[in-house]
């Protein structure tokens, strides 16, 4: 029961943990729990990987659009 409560807490700390903004003491407790709980360890690892996959996702602006926008802005500024 106590363990389940600890698992639930881990979830609420995830964003701060990955931001590096988690209080040091809580961070240590978080890491200790992860070492001790296979379920949370697996969860956090997949969570981290998914965040990494998304972080590597990039969208490119079509080159001609940059020029088109610049021409548009120049015309507006001239008015």
């Amino acid at each position, binding site marked *: 029961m106590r363990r389940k409560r600890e698992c639930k807490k881990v*979830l609420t700390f*995830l*964003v*701060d943990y990955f*931001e590096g*903004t988690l209080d040091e003491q809580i961070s240590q407790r978080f890491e200790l729990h992860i070492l001790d709980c296979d379920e949370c360890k697996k969860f956090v690892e*997949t*969570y981290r*990987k*998914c*965040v990494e*996959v*998304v*972080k590597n*996702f*990039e*969208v*490119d*602006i*079509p080159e001609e*659009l*940059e020029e*088109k*926008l*610049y021409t*548009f*802005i*120049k015309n*507006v*500024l001239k008015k």
Partner: protein
Amino acid sequence: MEEKELVERLKKGDDLAYREVIRRYGRKMFGLIFSMTKKRDETEEIMQEVFLKVIKHIKDFREDSLFSTWLFRITVNTTLSYMKKKKRKRESLISELKRDEEERIDFEDKEEKGTDETLETEERRKIVQTAIESLPQSYRIAIILKDIEGMPLTEVAKILKLSEGGTKVRLHRARLMLKKKLQPLVEKGKL
């Protein structure tokens, strides 16, 4: 060029400063708007509208936030009101639901194929894009600004007009949704 100088030049109507804004933030703006409209022509139209607003209001920008925060707040608001005007919210929701279903099947297909090879870059990209696009709009914006564009949480909160706590909750829920969608492929090392 420092941000302060950039803003001063924008206020003077220097077109080269605008070119710099396009160079620095154009890609992020395009990605953010496109993720909401999913239409290139509309994205272009909205980008023009955003720059019209920047030109019109830059003199009122008091520099009590970062210029990029101000710019992205305009970008988000302009996109949302554009979509509202076009009454596309409803249509988009219906198509999202349909796509969710197609996507579910698509993910299952990928699962069933079960080859040991990792997916091609383009295919991986498409899967991640579909997963991001399937998120509810507000979650999608949070993920794009924070995880893809790497903005600080405080800036994301200002753009979304949310508290930091509220932004964290939104980000966490969005990540959980993405995790649910991407997990099978991530676990198999295909992403």
